[in-house]
């Protein structure tokens, strides 16, 4: 009968920030490990709690089931003597693959290799430890002579009720499992009673179950990151609430929430949209709740008193008076101070017509980073911008300008909202352009694994603002202007052309990946050809193609486009006299007339994303190809025909490279 198998690796507390990913990747790797070793089972699962890595296999086969393998050996004439006796070569081959029998097929010897299938218990004893130790943990540490994600302190390993004597990082053989801190240890004598025993001792192995417990204990919407942090910090979450003095509600609610969430990892409590002087905390296990509550109340009081101290101290200087402090604060190493940054933003704004005419923006820019020098922001960096707005409002700064100080940091993440105010949007755009340009200028680029300054997030936000606000702005132009501001203020370290090329590639990849979230990959590829793009128009063109893709007219147009692309080989014949040239055939004249009537797509002016004008070319082009020979012997005629087609191609290219669109059936035309 198939038994269950359990391995519990007890560790010191695992890093909570990393557990969700780890549970997933370890689970996949464990399944693969079983499969590769021909261990069959009904189900396998990895559970992570702060102090355990649990490997659970249901109804595991008693032995490996390694299939027979046929191995090709030496040629017959080498393997056998003329009398049919085995040569040394054959004996060597057979002993190498531990086989006694062989067969002859064609000119070669073959041997059946039967690898010994080991008993499950023995297999895990020998093969599981090296597999686990060699798993590519992202964060390993060293203790004594060992390395693992955190020190291993106990192991429980059973195959049914048979103990598995595993040894890992100096911990040998099975020991009792440990309970919650302060509680007694847990004696496990069989894999089968593991879950029951854990339950009796309040340990909840499933992270989803722990999550549900916390969620159901707290009313209203709660921050997911803090929720998961608590899930990964508890084996038995118990939610309770604590209070603080109502006087402390005098602090801005944003400050109180940040202290509760980010510092205490607890959850604020709301009633009728008003912050209440209480919050929810999560204990690990059923403790003396009055005692624990007292601790949390002490912490919140101390933290909020500290925040009040910062709040009062910040009042000694207005934001405007703080502007000079920015000359002492680094923005990014090698890219000057925050004062340099705001200077650059001012020059950048002045160089772009959309921004230069806005006096509020020019007032906002120098003020926009002043809150970074406040004690509150230095202590609670998450409050950057938020404090700026709070202080600016109380200091009588124009409401629009005050609000834009916090607004500029939106969107902070993929799911965050865009800036609400126009000023906030504009500053957000300028700021993102400046940072991305500067970081590239000092030779740092984003790699697949590393993006320490969060450039991807910045660029995605920038592109989203342009698209969703329907701003038809060229990133290229802004980047060029931005590079000039670096020339003035700092030394750009790398060669300008290389920098521009790197930035271009960076935005190109970002734009493609963002568009691919909503549009078919081939459509995105057809629209985003390369170079700098205008994100808004790119999005509109994708949208239009996606709408039209099933229209016959659209397909015909794509076919025409591909023919033109192929015949012209995308080469410009360089003739400039089409206007005055006398076309010979009616078909030529017709498409030339239609072509002239198609509006040029103005990337940055009026938005025409209509495909209909191109459809007007469909019939004339079909007729043209039916009746006109492009490759006429007369070179002048031939070149003018090619020039005509090339002109059409260029016009269509402004919309997309239609030859890459994939139609039903998967064929490209």
């Amino acid at each position, binding site marked *: 009968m198939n038994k269950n198998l359990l391995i519990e690796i007890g560790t*010191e*507390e695992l*890093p*909570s*920030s990393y557990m969700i990913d780890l549970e997933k990747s370890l689970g996949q790797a464990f399944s693969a490990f079983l499969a590769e070793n021909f261990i069959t089972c009904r189900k396998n699962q990895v559970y992570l709690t*702060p102090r355990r890595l649990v490997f659970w296999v249901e109804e595991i086969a008693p032995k490996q089931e390694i299939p027979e393998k046929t191995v090709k050996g030496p040629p017959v004439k080498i393997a056998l003597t003329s009398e049919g006796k085995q040569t040394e070569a054959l004996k060597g081959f057979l002993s190498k693959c531990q086989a006694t029998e062989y067969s002859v097929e064609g000119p070669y010897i073959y041997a059946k290799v039967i690898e010994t299938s080991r008993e499950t218990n023995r297999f895990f004893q020998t093969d599981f430890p090296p597999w686990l130790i060699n798993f590519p943990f992202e*964060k390993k*540490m*060293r*203790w*004594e*002579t060992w390395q693992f994600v*955190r*020190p291993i*302190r106990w192991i429980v390993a059973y195959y049914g009720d048979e103990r598995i004597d595993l040894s890992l990082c*100096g911990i040998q053989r099975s020991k009792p499992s440990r309970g919650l*801190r*302060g*509680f007694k240890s847990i004696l496990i004598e069989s894999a089968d009673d593991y879950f029951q025993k854990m339950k009796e001792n309040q340990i909840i192995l499933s992270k989803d179950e722990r999550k549900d417990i916390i969620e159901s204990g707290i009313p209203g919407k709660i921050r997911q990151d803090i929720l998961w942090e608590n899930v990964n*910090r508890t084996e038995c979450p118990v939610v309770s609430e604590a209070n603080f003095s109502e006087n402390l509600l005098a602090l801005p609610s944003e400050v109180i929430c940040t202290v509760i969430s980010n510092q*205490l990892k*607890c959850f604020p409590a709301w009633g009728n949209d008003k912050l209440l002087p209480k919050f929810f*905390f999560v*204990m*690990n*296990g059923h*403790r*003396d709740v009055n*005692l*624990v*509550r*007292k*601790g*949390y109340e*002490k*912490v919140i*009081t*101390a933290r909020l*008193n*500290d925040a009040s*101290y910062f709040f009062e101290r910040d009042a000694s200087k207005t934001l405007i008076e703080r502007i000079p402090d920015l000359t*002492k*604060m*680094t923005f990014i190493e090698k890219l000057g*101070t925050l004062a340099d940054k705001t200077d650059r933003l001012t020059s950048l704004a002045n160089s772009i017509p959309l921004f230069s005419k806005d006096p509020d923006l020019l007032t906002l820019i120098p003020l926009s980073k002043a809150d970074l020098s406040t004690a509150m922001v230095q202590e609670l960096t998450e409050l950057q911008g938020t404090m700026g707005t709070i202080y600016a409002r109380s200091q009588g700064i124009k409401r629009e300008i005050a609000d834009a100080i916090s607004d500029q940091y939106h969107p902070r993440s993929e799911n965050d909202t865009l800036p609400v105010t126009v000023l906030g949007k504009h500053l957000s755009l300028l700021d993102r352009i400046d940072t991305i340009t500067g970081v590239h200028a000092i030779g740092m680029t984003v790699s697949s694994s590393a993006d320490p300054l969060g450039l991807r997030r910045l660029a995605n936000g920038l592109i989203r603002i342009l698209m969703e606000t329907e701003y038809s702005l060229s990133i290229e132009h802004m980047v060029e202007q931005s590079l000039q501001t670096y020339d003035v203020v700092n030394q750009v370290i790398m060669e300008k052309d290389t920098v521009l090329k790197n930035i271009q590639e960076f935005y190109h990849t970002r734009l493609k990946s963002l568009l691919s979230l909503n549009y078919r990959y081939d459509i995105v590829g057809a629209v985003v050809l390369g170079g700098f793009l205008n994100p808004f128009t790119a999005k509109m063109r994708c949208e239009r193609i996606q709408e039209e893709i099933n229209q016959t007219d659209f397909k015909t147009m794509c076919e025409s486009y591909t023919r033109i692309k192929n015949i012209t080989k995308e080469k410009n014949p360089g003739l400039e006299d089409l206007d005055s040239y006398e076309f010979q055939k009616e078909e030529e004249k017709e498409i030339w007339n239609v072509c002239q009537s198609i509006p040029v797509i103005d990337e940055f002016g009026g938005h025409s994303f209509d495909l209909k004008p191109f459809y007007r070319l469909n019939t004339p082009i079909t007729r043209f190809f039916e009746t006109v020979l492009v490759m006429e012997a007369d070179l002048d005629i031939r070149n003018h025909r090619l020039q005509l087609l090339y002109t059409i191609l260029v016009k269509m290219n402004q919309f997309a490279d239609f030859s890459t669109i994939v139609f039903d059936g998967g064929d490209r035309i």
Partner: protein
Amino acid sequence: MIGLIVKRIGIVNLDLIIASLEHFWREQGCTILPAYDIEVGAGTMAPFTFFQVLHKRDIALCYVQPSRRPTDGRYGLNPNRVFKHHQMQVIIKPPPMDIQEIYVKSLESIGIDPLAHDIRFIEDNWEAPTLGAWGVGWEVWLDGMEITQFTYFQQAGGFDLPNPSVEITYGLERISLYIQEKDSIYDMNFGEKVGYKELRFAEEAQQSSYCHDLADKERLLALFQLFFDEGAFCLTQNLILPGYEYALKCSHVFNILDARGALSVTERARYLGKIRNLTKKSAQLYRMEQNE
């Protein structure tokens, strides 16, 4: 034994917490040392830790270290933050297998019941750039309050440590505040007959006003340079400990300048670099000496 006393008398003054913890760790085989006598920002900077983690021999030490952090000075007006607080530093190499459990027992010895309280090890890797040191570990939360830093040293003086030490740093004021059930540090007892306020308030007020408002930048910069030069000189003579002590002096002067807001960003980075040079050089020389 002292744990029992704690339970019986109920009120635990700061001096009894120190005595209990020292007694506890002594029973665990630690040698109890007097505090190191030069200004430091943390117990890690005392040579008892900085140099002892670098060699290959076993160690087990415990000492109370007064730690000065000028930027935290609040003129004696903040109930929790102070210019000078007291750390209890335990440093053991190699770490015992059940070091976390031993630590929890040490809390029991000062009357903290691990069954009733919520004791948690929260991921918090520690780093001290001026010492070229970092480690992996946790801050220990007692009912939401950070009371201890628990670290497995991985590197010190820029060197990978062949046999990592465990460092346990208790924040004594925090623990005492909690056990004595007071809201302000200045309301608690240091000893049976001495209040914390009586002993320390004037020092806090004066040091804060000195560090935040009055310290003379020019003289301090000159002092920094003098200490630095003397330290660098000692190290050229292979005088490791005297050289390192001057690095600590530089560090304290730097901290005062920093609290005074007297340093620009670039100056700050430059002075930190200078301190790091001295500590790193000291560690190098120490390792060479040990390997001879």
